[in-house]
């Protein structure tokens, strides 16, 4: 194995082009003759469309088409319900263009295609819609109350689903408890906010009958197969490319966003390329959002603070539609016990509609809420029993020797929620050591004497990652010696062109910089699902390992034959196959690739010479029956169930009671995602997740007024943290390899964001302990914290 393979903190293959401004993002794609689309979006959270008159817009110079629902015909079907669930009795999905009424601000109503985006937006302004505004329901905690406005006329009480799950016998556990504590915990709406918004470019070739689409999506294969079915094209005549994607965080995966249907369809109608690029305002009012949940939680403990049972009732805000069905609230429910033993548990879920943008999983996907709830209860136990919260954590942790640990509920993929490996006590001990808890307590006491409010918070979480169904990969050695690797997942900044190359390089004994990885191009690899649920490395990474191992076998067998040695004596080092103990008897991977193709044209002189010198002519056909040319293979990996990453974070904060502002003095994160393929990339994932968590805990909150207007739909009003708000982050790694896959990896993408709200709540309460402030909601802000300090009522 080279020292640049699995485990090496090497520089990324993708960086030089991105640094030079040579990345290829969707809006960078500009086919000749391209037309530009703009979307008319409803200006109300809830309104009836009495009529639409697009005649003036249609007559404007430079306008090629204006489409409303009436023009789409059978295309205008509700999107498929991708993840059905028996409890989802009233699932509803969006149509490409609204019919009769809009149910959230930003719902697409019409599309203009014109010579330029400027002209298309001019024409949008000339479409007359006769609107009848309707009363809206925005507060999800009230959505299921009788008499509230209905988002969908045929969904009583705005309830999409009710679902109850039980583990053990919660009521008996509560009857035997020494203590029962109750909390009402509220988490509000945020969004992923990738800096690149969404975009779609489509080219239809009438001669070939083929459609090519560039889409800033996390799941191009799903889009491709869906488009083929919807537009009546053979799957192999549709190609969807997710080129460089400027951040996703879950926001860019839906089947379908309206534009993903409308733009390709318009390109076919008009016989011209069509491009649509989402602007930031559109992103705020039409791309998916997440987080809103209200939990009524009670916990039963014995006299020592050991958890006997939990009863949790949660209302989940799904916004206007349920494209992901029950996925997010189910993740919350199954992951609520987190790293703790909860022998008896009842979870009641109510999923409600509101006149707000639809909710789909956003980095963390239901887990930050679950962690917030669980850790709030841990803190409550600690406070009531006069223990350090970490002592309560230690008394309740699932121990390494308990693995595999069954939570007792089915996970989002239908398989058991069964933790495969992890060492939570060791992680917490490392976090305590890194942040030096005893030293902080001394510092805190000193600070309090000086009138300063310092506090420390910890939070622990687990994350089910790497779910199926499966991914695949194609690995092939070129006559140049370069290796090509394609897989169906996409990359939105995770560095797959590097970590995947490291997996190939480790198997084939070459340098990762000699491996070209292509992700998100359906023409290069046509099987798989996409990048979500912290699954790309687990599923595609292991598929790449499987494919690479097959190629390795072909390389070794061919080299052994040509070098006339036993395959066991062949080793792959430095881009060559050589005889162990006789390094001068070596063939380059390029020479072997040339030799493996019966048509041995001299594309590369040295490789061809080596191949021609060694390959002896044979009588008869150049390929035996069943033999394949070349050094290539496809491999697939289907995990039987999720792998469970885990982590323990700690932070020291200082709160200024006069302003409600908060400064993070230190932030420590311990993370265990199994085998580290590239530690620098994993650390980067942690950094980004934590920063998003900090935003979600203290800065970012989407605010709708009572009519469903999103009143802070800009980066001036919805505050993403800048470099001034994110402190230096200290990351510690544990490596507990997963027994569930050959690489031993677990997902790392979402983890960082999960514990931050919980951690802040504990740290702020600790800082303000002399004032007795209690945190039962997220996100906070300086204003809201000031209100809490001064005991003002807040939003519900």
């Amino acid at each position, binding site marked *: 194995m080279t020292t640049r393979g699995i485990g090496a903190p090497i*520089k*990324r293959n*993708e*960086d*030089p082009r*991105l*640094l*030079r*401004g*040579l*990345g290829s*993002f969707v*809006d*960078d794609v*500009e086919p000749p003759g391209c037309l530009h689309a703009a979307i008319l979006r409803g200006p109300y959270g809830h309104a009836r469309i009495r009529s639409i008159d697009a005649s003036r817009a249609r007559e*404007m*110079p430079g306008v090629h088409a204006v489409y409303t629902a009436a023009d789409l015909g059978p295309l205008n079907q509700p999107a498929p319900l991708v993840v059905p669930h028996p409890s989802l009795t009233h699932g509803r999905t969006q149509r490409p263009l609204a019919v009769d009424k809009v149910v959230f601000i930003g719902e697409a109503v019409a599309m203009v295609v014109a010579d330029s985006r*400027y002209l298309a937006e001019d024409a949008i302004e000339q479409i007359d819609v006769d609107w009848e505004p309707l009363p809206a329901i925005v507060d999800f905690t009230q959505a299921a109350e009788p008499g509230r406005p209905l988002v969908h006329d045929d969904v009583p009480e705005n309830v999409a689903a009710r679902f109850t799950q039980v583990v053990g016998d919660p009521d008996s556990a509560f009857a035997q408890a020494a203590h029962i504590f109750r909390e009402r915990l509220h988490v509000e709406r945020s969004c*992923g*906010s*990738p*800096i*690149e*918004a969404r975009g779609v470019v489509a080219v239809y070739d009438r001669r070939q009958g083929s459609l090519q689409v560039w889409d800033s999506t996390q799941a191009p294969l799903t889009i491709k197969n869906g488009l083929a079915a919807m537009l009546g094209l053979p799957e192999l005549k549709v190609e969807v490319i997710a080129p*460089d*994607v*400027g*951040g996703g*965080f879950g926001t860019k995966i839906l089947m379908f966003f309206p534009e993903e249907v409308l733009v390709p369809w318009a390109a076919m109608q008009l016989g011209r390329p069509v491009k649509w*690029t989402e*602007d*930031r305002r559109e992103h705020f009012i039409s791309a998916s959002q997440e987080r809103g949940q209200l939990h009524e939680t009670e916990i039963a403990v014995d006299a020592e603070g050991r958890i006997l049972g939990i009863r949790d009732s949660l209302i989940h805000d799904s916004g206007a539609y349920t494209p992901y069905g029950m996925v997010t609230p189910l993740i919350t429910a199954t992951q609520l016990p987190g790293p703790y033993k909860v022998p008896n548990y009842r979870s009641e879920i109510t999923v409600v509609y509101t006149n707000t943008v639809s909710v789909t999983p956003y980095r963390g996907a239901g887990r930050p809420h679950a962690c917030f709830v669980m850790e709030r209860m841990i803190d409550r136990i600690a406070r009531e029993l006069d223990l350090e919260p970490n002592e309560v954590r230690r008394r309740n942790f699932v121990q390494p020797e308990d693995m595999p640990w069954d939570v007792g509920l089915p996970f989002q993929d239908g398989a058991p929620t069964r933790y495969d490996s992890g060492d939570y006590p060791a992680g917490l001990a490392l976090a305590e050591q890194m942040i030096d808890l005893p030293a902080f307590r001394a510092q805190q006491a000193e600070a309090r004497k000086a009138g300063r409010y310092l506090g420390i918070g910890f939070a622990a979480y687990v994350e089910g990652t790497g779910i199926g169904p499966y991914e695949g990969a194609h690995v092939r050695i070129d006559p140049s010696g370069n290796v090509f690797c394609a897989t169906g997942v996409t990359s*939105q*900044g*995770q*560095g797959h062109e590097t970590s995947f190359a490291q997996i190939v390089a480790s198997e084939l004994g070459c340098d990762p910089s000699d491996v070209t990885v292509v992700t998100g191009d359906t023409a290069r690899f046509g099987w798989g699902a996409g990048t979500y649920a912290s699954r790309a490395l687990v599923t595609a990474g292991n598929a790449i390992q499987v494919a690479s191992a097959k190629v390795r076998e072909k390389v070794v067998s061919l080299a052994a034959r040509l070098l006339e040695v036993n395959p066991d004596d062949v080793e792959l080092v430095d881009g060559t196959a050589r005889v162990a103990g006789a390094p001068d008897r070596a063939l380059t991977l390029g020479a072997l690739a040339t030799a493996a193709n019966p048509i041995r044209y001299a594309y590369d002189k040295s490789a061809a010479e080596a191949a021609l010198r060694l390959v002896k002519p044979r009588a008869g056909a150049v390929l035996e029956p069943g033999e394949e040319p070349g050094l290539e293979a496809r491999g697939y990996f289907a995990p039987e169930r999720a792998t469970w990453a885990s982590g323990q974070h700690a932070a020291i904060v200082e709160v200024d009671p006069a302003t409600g502002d908060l400064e993070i003095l230190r932030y420590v994160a311990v993370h265990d995602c199994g085998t580290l393929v590239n530690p*620098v*990339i994993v*650390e*980067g994932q942690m*950094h*980004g*997740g*934590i*920063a*998003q968590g900090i935003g979600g805990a203290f800065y970012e909150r989407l605010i709708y007024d009572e009519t469903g207007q999103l009143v802070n739909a*800009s*980066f*001036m009003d919805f505050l*993403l943290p*800048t*470099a*001034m708000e*994110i402190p*230096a*982050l200290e990351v510690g790694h544990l490596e507990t390899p997963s027994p569930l896959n050959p690489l031993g990896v677990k997902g790392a993408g979402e983890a*960082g964001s999960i514990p931050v709200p919980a951690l802040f709540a504990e740290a702020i309460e600790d800082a303000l302990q002399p004032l007795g402030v209690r945190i039962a909601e997220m996100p906070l802000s300086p204003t809201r914290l000031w209100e809490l300090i001064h005991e003002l009522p807040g939003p519900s």
Partner: protein
Amino acid sequence: MRAVSRVAISLTVNGQPHRRSVEPRLLLTDFLRHELGLTGTHVGCEHGVCGACTVLLDDEPVRACLMLAVQANECAITTVEGLAPSSDQLHPLQEAFWEAHGLQCGFCTPGILISMVALLRENPRPTDEEIRTGLAGNLCRCTGYQNIVKAVRLAADRLADAPGLPLSRARERMSAKPIFAPRSGAGGEG
């Protein structure tokens, strides 16, 4: 429908002169990206907060999404494509970003590189606090800014040791007329 008059402009981008006739309302971002094909300048918000579109205009960092192309008439612009000295060599700041893993998705990166070129020119030895203040006008959603700060510090150290390395290629200004007051660096605008 009004007739759209066009306005002739001439400007230098990355050292190369261009003469074009443009609509008065054409944004500088759209001009750079779609008229000149310099797609390295990215558009993240179109309201001057995210900083992805930052370019040097007569050596000062500006938001190209808040400017019209006509306002850049007779100016010299440097975009991210103009930073590297050659196709096989990176700018020291680009090199440092590569080494320190200062980028993930790479979408905000061009604007950050340009802002940091300007920062290091003003303040060749910034403290971490000064780097963070200088970065505060650029949003990154992937990195938590950790390795960006690290990369800028790495570049600053190297440039201080080798002062001959370039920080800007827009050496020859066509004029020095002010367009907008340049961003001070601290905080989002607006």
